[in-house]
């Protein structure tokens, strides 16, 4: 390779093509920006989590259990504290109704009864600051709560809050505390009381959903050693362990999944940018065929040509990557605001070199991959073309075409898998992207081919000429349909999915759906509670008994042994160790579908062990059990033998009582149980009064107004949708840039032809109609294909991913299609303007 020559030529080509390269690079830069912004946010958040994990946890170690922590565990904790000079603190944590006598309103809250030393790391920051001290002193029953609770109950600091049988004075609001964050507290606001006050509430009763927590402060190495030494003992006692490292891992995993899912939208923008670069480089290469032939004829080697134009692509990718990275860094400052309430820590954006490097690499790789095809064409230009302009290279052999196509596909898959939350998601994403791009390109090519055969011969000249532009050489049909269609597809699909999710939420709050959930109803409270509901005009929609249980053995093998075998399988460990809420029913529930085995129809089925049990598919998979396998339960100390009789698919999307494990009525009814009720009262005011009276009559029963949960879900989904939309805007802007670039390319290529027509006597009006016909036809085709594919994709996502019924958002999709059609037609039409306006002679000279 002749380095001096290549460098000089590259410099000159860059000088000559900088505007074009800026346009193509812009297409790529926006996708890179979205990904760099998200990578940066993830890195910054991870750093913040690392710094704040202990504060978020409230100590260096947290032990939790659904029953009081056993003495053995307390002794082990005592040894750890004594040997390290650390400390321990206890928190009892449960859900309860809180009511405000001042306003008569009530609300489900998350009660945290904290011991005197809590938190051992970090702080509970309150307003006023001394409020926390007053709670911990416990001299007067005092509470601090999330500010949202005070707003919802209509009370102020100094007012009284009733929890069960105890009354507390609200002495402040919580500004910051370990544990829940952001939108999590919207479902159940937190109320902190002194640990000593739990008894007075009389809310902790058998079967209540109570979590007992022990926090420890000790050096992390000692904690790690202690956990390793006592893991088996703790697991056998059903004590869950969370360390700072584990907390960091969990939070970072969560943030990683969220940013990577959002990153898929950025990735789509990047792929779209790649398509734009490919289209742009193809046009650039077409313009360079004669130059290349001349260079080859005067002695440039194929390596020189590759170096010049490959170098051009390299510079394009590097500049696009760098500009995208710079934009991404700016975006990084905006994302935390957009995702407020969804991040577990306070994030201060900062420059993240790794994120920037990732962006530059992505820009380079994607540009080069999409430029390879056109560059291969350039290298194959025969020098003989310098003598005869019609002399073209022989078409690339099938093997070569497959290799180039394969390179694009493999790169797309690798980049997707690298950026996606999981390899499987990456593969699905790449497959979906490839399918959509292939369908768009295929449909555009098919239409062009059919137009070639079905020319409207009787139509006016401008119409025939305009339509012919769709299929003649150097047409822009496929590239325009790909870019406009894909941009529309992306936006319309995101909109369609969100519209369907919101519709489902609206359905769940519809007139036939339950809007009150009552749980922790004790056996002796079922009758009186039903009477009260009936008296107040509330309809019981559903009720189900709950029996707390744990697994003790599977197939005769005890759980401890299974855990040792499945030590690295997170899902299996969780399924083996979790506490189960068993329920019993004679009839199959309408949200359940049997996929294996049979449902019990025999009334005697539940009267003797082993009891038949029906498991949900996910839990059966996690436990690796199927029909006929033996499962032994520990029902509050009593072993109960069962055999898997069926496996069920559960429709979790429905707002109803659903269970992973169901038993037939009979023997199990003797176990201590609570009952959960789903009820409906249509009037909001009467519903609030009913909640208040329920709390008074049954202080231990928790009542949840479903509209609050659904409202919180709606708020979270709206927040996520906002972030997704913002990232989708990058893809749309990419599409728009490509469209501008395509219009510029079209202008360059149509100039000579338009001038010829003009020289031959075509009027400005005819030229305008020719250009407009082409632009309108392309815009319409892209809009129809993009909208059609988006409806299909929305249906598929609803059907297979979200598993909820699909209702097409036809009106919105049509509006989006009309907008994309209008933009592409206007831009396409504008492409012919300079030629129409200019003098043929002037432009012909310039040509």
């Amino acid at each position, binding site marked *: 390779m002749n380095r001096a020559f290549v460098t000089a030529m590259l410099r000159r*080509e860059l000088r000559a093509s900088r505007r074009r390269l800026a346009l193509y690079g812009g297409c790529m830069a926006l996708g890179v920006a979205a990904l760099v912004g998200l990578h940066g946010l993830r890195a910054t958040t991870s750093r913040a989590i690392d710094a704040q994990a202990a504060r978020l946890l409230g100590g260096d170690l947290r032990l939790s259990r659904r029953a009081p922590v056993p003495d053995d565990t307390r002794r082990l904790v005592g040894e750890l504290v004594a040997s390290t000079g650390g400390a321990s603190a206890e928190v009892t944590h449960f859900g309860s109704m809180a009511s405000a006598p001042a306003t008569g309103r009530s609300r489900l809250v998350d009660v945290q009864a904290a011991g005197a030393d809590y938190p051992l790391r970090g702080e509970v920051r309150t307003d006023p600051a001394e409020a926390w001290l007053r709670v911990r002193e416990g001299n007067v029953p005092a509470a601090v709560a999330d500010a949202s609770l005070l707003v919802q109950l209509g009370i102020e600091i100094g007012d009284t809050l009733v929890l069960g049988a105890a009354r507390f004075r609200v002495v402040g609001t919580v500004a910051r505390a370990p544990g829940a964050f952001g939108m999590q507290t919207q479902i159940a606001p937190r109320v902190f009381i002194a640990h000593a006050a739990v008894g007075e509430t009389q809310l902790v009763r058998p079967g209540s959903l109570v979590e007992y927590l022990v926090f420890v402060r000790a050096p992390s190495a000692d904690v790690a050693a202690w956990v390793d030494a006592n893991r088996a003992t703790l697991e056998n006692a059903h004590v869950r362990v969370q360390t700072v490292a584990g907390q960091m891992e969990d939070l970072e995993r969560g943030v990683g999944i969220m940013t990577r899912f959002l990153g898929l939208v950025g990735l789509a923008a990047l792929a779209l940018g790649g398509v734009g670069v490919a289209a742009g480089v193809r046009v650039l290469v077409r313009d360079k065929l004669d130059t290349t032939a*001349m260079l080859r*004829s*005067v002695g440039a*080697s194929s390596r020189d040509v590759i170096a010049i134009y490959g170098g051009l692509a390299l510079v394009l990718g590097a500049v696009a990557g760098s500009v995208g990275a710079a934009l991404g860094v700016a975006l990084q400052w905006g994302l935390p605001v957009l995702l407020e309430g969804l991040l577990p820590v306070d994030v201060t954006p900062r420059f993240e070199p790794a994120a920037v490097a990732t962006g530059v690499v992505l820009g380079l790789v994607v540009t080069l991959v999409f430029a390879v095809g056109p560059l291969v064409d350039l290298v194959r230009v025969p*020098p003989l073309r310098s003598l*005869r*302009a019609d002399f073209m290279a022989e078409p690339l052999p099938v093997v070569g075409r497959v290799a180039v196509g394969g390179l694009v596909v493999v790169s797309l898959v690798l980049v997707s898998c690298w950026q996606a939350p999981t390899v499987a998601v990456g593969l699905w994403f790449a497959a979906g992207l490839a399918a959509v791009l292939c369908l768009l390109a295929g449909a555009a090519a098919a239409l062009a081919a059919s137009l070639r055969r079905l020319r409207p011969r009787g139509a006016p000249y401008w119409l025939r000429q305009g339509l012919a532009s769709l299929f003649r050489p150097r047409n822009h049909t496929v590239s325009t349909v790909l870019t406009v269609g894909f941009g529309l597809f992306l936006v319309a699909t995101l909109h369609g999915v969100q519209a369907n999710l919101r519709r489902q939420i609206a359905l769940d709050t519809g007139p036939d759906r339950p809007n009150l959930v009552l749980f922790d109803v004790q056996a002796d409270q079922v009758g009186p509670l039903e009477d009260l509901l009936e008296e107040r005009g509330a309809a019981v929609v559903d009720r189900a008994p709950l029996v707390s249980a744990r697994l003790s053995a599977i197939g005769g093998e005890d759980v401890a042994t299974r855990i040792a075998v499945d030590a690295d399988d997170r899902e299996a460990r969780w399924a083996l160790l979790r506490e189960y809420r068993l329920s019993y029913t004679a009839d199959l529930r309408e949200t359940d579908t049997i996929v294996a085995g049979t449902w019990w129809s025999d009334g005697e089925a539940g009267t003797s062990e082993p009891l038949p049990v029906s498991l949900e598919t996910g839990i059966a998979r996690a436990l690796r059990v199927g029909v006929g396998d033996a499962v032994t339960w520990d029902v509050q100390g009593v072993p109960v033998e069962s055999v898997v009789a069926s496996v069920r698919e559960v429709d979790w999307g429905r707002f109803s009582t659903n269970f992973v494990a169901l038993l037939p009525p009979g023997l199990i009814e003797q176990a201590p149980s609570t009952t959960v009720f789903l009820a409906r009262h249509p009037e909001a005011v009467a519903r609030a009064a009913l909640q208040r009276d329920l709390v008074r009559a049954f202080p231990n029963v928790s009542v949840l107004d479903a509209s609050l949960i659904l409202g919180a879900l709606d708020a979270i989904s709206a927040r996520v949708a906002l972030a997704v939309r913002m990232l989708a805007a990058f893809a749309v802007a990419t599409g728009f840039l490509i469209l501008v670039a395509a219009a510029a390319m079209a202008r360059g290529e149509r100039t000579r032809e338009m001038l010829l027509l003009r020289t031959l006597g075509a009027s400005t009006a005819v030229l305008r109609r020719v250009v407009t016909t082409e632009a309108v036809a392309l815009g319409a085709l892209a809009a129809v294909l993009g909208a059609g594919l988006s409806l299909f994709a929305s249906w598929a996502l609803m059907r297979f991913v979200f598993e909820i019924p699909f209702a097409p958002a036809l009106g919105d999709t049509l509006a989006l299609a009309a907008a994309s059609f209008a933009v592409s037609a206007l831009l396409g039409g504008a492409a012919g303007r300079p030629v129409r306006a200019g003098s043929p002679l002037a432009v012909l000279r310039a*040509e």
Partner: protein
Amino acid sequence: MIVARNLRQRYPRPGSDEPLVVLDGVDLEIAQGEILSVLGPSGSGKTTLLGLLAGLDLPTEGTVELAGRSLAVLDEDGRAALRAASVGFVFQSFQLVPTLTALENVLVPLELLGRPATAADREARARELLGRVGLTERVGHYPAQLSGGEQQRVGIARAFANEPRVLFADEPTGNLDGATGQGIIELLLELNREKGTTLVIVTHDLELARRAGRILHLSRGRVERMESPG
């Protein structure tokens, strides 16, 4: 300088088993410093012959020796290197790079060859050549800013830049009016005399052809006759 033996060139014809025969058994020897015109009607194989002699393509059958090297044993990059060192071209459609100035277009073969060794010397040589073809004032102009005749002058300056041993001119006046074309021919021949270059001119123009030492008349891919206008 150039020896061609039994040159045959055939191309597959779409939809037919019979190939298109463009050249059919051409034998030719051209001596150092000689001027040869190739004359013939459209489709007679003139440009194909020029492409084969210059190593822009390989024949279906037969051999070509250029500047003492057999083209058959060289790959495409090897032939490119030989062209860079020993061959110059003047094209009918000028083939100037539209994004390079006149000066930069002339610099291309010098940079490819890497001679003279320094960029300043290369530029001085390119300016000298452009001055020699009467374009001193136009060195910074782009092809679109030059007339057809000026563009071909740049093409001639570029063709002589690497001091080629053989110069191939493909219809050098084909895109120019009579007077401009005449000026170009005079320039081409004058430079040829100065440099002692072997010159192969493909043309329709009988007047131009008669300025050569020999005229090869080509018809339907065969040598019809060789004429020495004397």
